[in-house]
């Protein structure tokens, strides 16, 4: 069982959260011309490292906020979590 520290509520059990995937993908800027290749990259292509991974989580059964986590995909150690508009304080 993972223990995840929600930046708003503190440490809670994994059961309260749902996963949001790669936290590094940036949606192309709204209203700007974008070529289809960049759009496809945004939709289908992800970071998939073995090791430190920046990812999104949602405190679904808690405060319902989205936030970022830095987690090791091989050991599952969670190095840090932070609010969406913050950077990790590692």
């Amino acid at each position: 069982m993972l223990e995840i520290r929600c930046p708003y509520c503190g440490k809670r059990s994994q059961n309260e959260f749902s996963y949001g995937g790669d936290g590094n993908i940036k949606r192309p800027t709204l209203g700007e011309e974008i070529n289809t290749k960049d759009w496809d990259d945004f939709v289908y292509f992800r970071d998939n490292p073995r090791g430190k991974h920046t990812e999104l989580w949602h405190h679904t059964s808690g405060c319902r906020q989205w936030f970022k986590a830095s987690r090791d995909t091989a050991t599952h150690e969670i190095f840090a979590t932070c609010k969406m508009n913050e950077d990790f304080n590692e």
Partner: protein
Amino acid sequence: MQKYSIFSLVKNALSNHKDWEVAWKDPEPKKEYDVVIVGGGGHGLATAYYLAKEHGITNVAILEKGWIGGGNVGRNTTILRSNYMFDSNSHFYEFGMKQWETLSQELNYNVMYSPRGIINLAHSDAQMNAYARRGNSMRLNGIDAVLLGRDELKKMIPFADFSDTCRFPIHGGLMQPRGGTARHDAVAWGYARQADSMGVDIIQNCEVTGFDVTDGKVSGVQTSRGSIKTKKVGLCVAGSTTLLADMLNMRLPIEAHVLQACVSEPVKPLLDHVVTFGAGHFYCSQSDKGEMVMGGDLDGYNSYAQRGNMPMIQHVLTGGLAVFPNFSRLKMLRTWGGIMDMSMDGSPIIDKTHIDGVYLNCGWCYGGFKATPCSGWVFAHTIAKNEVHELNADFNLERFHSGKIIDEKGVGPKPWIG
């Protein structure tokens, strides 16, 4: 190669089983091969076998970082089926079903193919309609499909919860009678033994750590046992695909996730089919030893750990008990996990790459075991002829740019949402 038969069994029994030939050798890697296959799972072994058998290419090495069969091919729940709706999937997997039917004879190795029938349970009228549609499209593609009513199912799985008051009453189901199971280890060993006998080198404890690429062309691989020259490399590394693609500066529409399975203590014969719960994540079959082999869904976050987490096991078994309440009395024997190469549309990728001589076989998600024979067959064709076969033409990398994705489940590019 020694042929396995009732006579060889008797003969070797008389000499106390001391004179059996080794099933495959343990050679030192040579300096150069015509083709190098990375990954000694089911797909790598089958590819090497068909390269030798169908294309006469025998100067082939399989490089496996651990031992053959130690990856997903030895960790899966062995379900075989071709109950798909999209043509690309139907044609490909049905070609595979036909291979399963004669695989034991072809390999002279009992892969214990058991066409016991796979039943997908339906729990609402809408689901019955969807299954009728899927069954019809299967039959249009020449694949066997039978729509079952509640009363027929009561006779087949009488111990399931058929009460009216349960949360997800059983309305009926869709069955593919030729679907079933096979013995996973036997598939790996059978292909290994035949490939070896035709001259393929199976090299275990040999990890590929880099590629030699000049001017967009591959010329060799770096391994933990030295460098090996080759003009053609086929990648069959399942859950490790991204790690190797990174060495080639290839960004792929793949995420690594752990999938768990578990088995109960062995009990007397009870369940004659493969059954999947239609209202949650649970499927089950009974092994020949009597264990209930059960599985469900991904743990739900990227993972390269070949072990899972308890919440998903609990979630899956909760679903299981909703269909088969009597399973609550079973003791759990063990649980384990394997790393899945989850593609962004749930379908595989079997293609050439932007590097001359590098071929890609990945994206098998939940269902790559059943694909072992046909994946090996088309991948061998793709490597030997340097062009894709009709059967894998749609499983290209380009589809993530052309828009011709094959999203059978319709969940979108979020593999952890089952």
